[in-house]
């Protein structure tokens, strides 16, 4: 799809989460890259690092559906985690990445390209890479606490 020129790096402990500057971001840890007149959306390296190996991905809405921000659109399960998937903004989910339905491991193997999740049309302003990294910096403590809390239950 694209040759990545440059990336910022956010350190998660010792892990370097690469945040390419050629695209924009949602603060719920998705990247968005223009593909024709829509945006291709996928998980950032930060999200994938937390998920680890993705086993299962299920969409609960049909392609070409208008969604509201935070509306439930699917489920994901990985070796370490489960999560409901939510629409990152008001807009329309145009189509899903069919390749993932057979093999969601592409999310791990190539999260910034072939592991894209869906194509999305929205007018919501998005974050630049630098802004997204600031979101990560601000939220890192809290994310670690969230994980620890769940482990300690």
């Amino acid at each position, binding site marked *: 799809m694209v040759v990545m020129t440059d990336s910022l790096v956010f350190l998660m402990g010792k892990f370097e989460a690469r945040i390419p500057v050629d695209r924009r971001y949602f603060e719920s840890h998705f990247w968005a890259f223009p593909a024709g007149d829509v945006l291709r959306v996928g998980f950032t390296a930060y999200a994938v690092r937390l998920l680890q190996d993705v086993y299962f991905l299920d969409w609960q809405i049909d392609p070409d559906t208008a969604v509201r921000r935070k509306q439930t659109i699917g489920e994901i399960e990985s070796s370490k985690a489960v999560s409901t998937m939510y629409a990152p903004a008001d807009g329309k989910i145009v189509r899903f990445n069919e390749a993932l339905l057979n093999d969601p491991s592409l999310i791990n193997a190539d999260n910034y390209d072939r592991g894209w999740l869906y194509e999305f049309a929205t007018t919501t302003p998005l974050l630049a890479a630098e802004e997204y990294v600031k979101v990560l910096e601000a939220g890192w403590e809290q994310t670690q606490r969230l994980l620890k*809390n769940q482990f300690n239950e």
Partner: protein
Amino acid sequence: MAGRKLTVVISQAPGKNPVKRHLEEEIATRLMLSGTAEVSVVPHLYDLTSDHTGMLWLKSLKGNLVVLGWLYPRAIRWVLDRNGVKGQVGESRLNVAETTDDEEDPPETAEDLAPQGIGSLNVPNRLIFAIDLRNDPDPQTYISEIERLSESLAVPLVQLSGLFGSSMTSNGHPTVSTNGSPNTNGAAQTNGSAAKGEITAAHDSNSNSPTPQAPVVIGGENVRRRWYPVIDYSRCTNCMECLDFCLFGVYGVDLTDRILVEQEDNCKKGCPACSRVCPANAIVFPEHKTPAIAGAEGGAVEDFKIDLSKLFGAPSALEMAVQERDVELVADGRDAVGTAVGLPKRQSGLSEKPRDALDDLMDGLDSLDL
């Protein structure tokens, strides 16, 4: 009271799941055969209207009561309570997580988590044991527990039966009534009831046949599925936030200004929004897929996996409630109101407090896919 058997009512699973039906029938027939308890069967408790034969039957029962059903014990208890079948909370060993939460002295922090409720009114001095049939697929688990309860409630059944035959065991229940004539057979409990011809085949415990007749389901025909909130008054603080939030007129107050579910059939199927705004987590939708809403005692994590929903944009409980309410409003041809109407009062003035680990924990729980 002496000689009265423990009363057991089995609430059937909705639908026709043969595995569930089999478990219900096994428990019923084994209890009948052993003579441990007076058994009857009603359709799915939650679906019964207040004037349904099965519910009227439950209301007619006196004394200690065991209710087995396919619901969380809290849900069973408060569905019964709302229909006037009241009693003190009986503790079953099968509901361990349940009873420790309810009955032990709460740890300090629990005061914030579960504010003291206004309680139920006019609770008679008898025990109601609510048991979830999803605990275990083995009927023996329930039989053993009912036998244990029966003994611990000190019903002097065994001695009396030994002395006088089975004459003391009948208490007027229609489903099982052993013959009242004196019987010299000392083992009256297990096979004495087979002595007289007027007793039906269901009581023929001498036979080893595995298919004795199960009790008739009381009012079993044409029970419609229902959806409505059930208030847990042990938690409810009468804050009225549900009354403010629900725009479908489900809630009301009684003559003493206690909150109640007034127009239950105004409730929108599948919508649990008021439960999410309830600050005391006192509103139960027994059929909701999220255990915390369906009446599970809070905090149990079924799975060791981490829930990352919060990270990936999960709405807060309040956001979700507003969304669910809007969907139902629009479906009714009304306008969505978003956050403009009936939002909980507690949201104001709380923002200055710094978040702490407990806040995170609570938020985390909220989004757990239990």
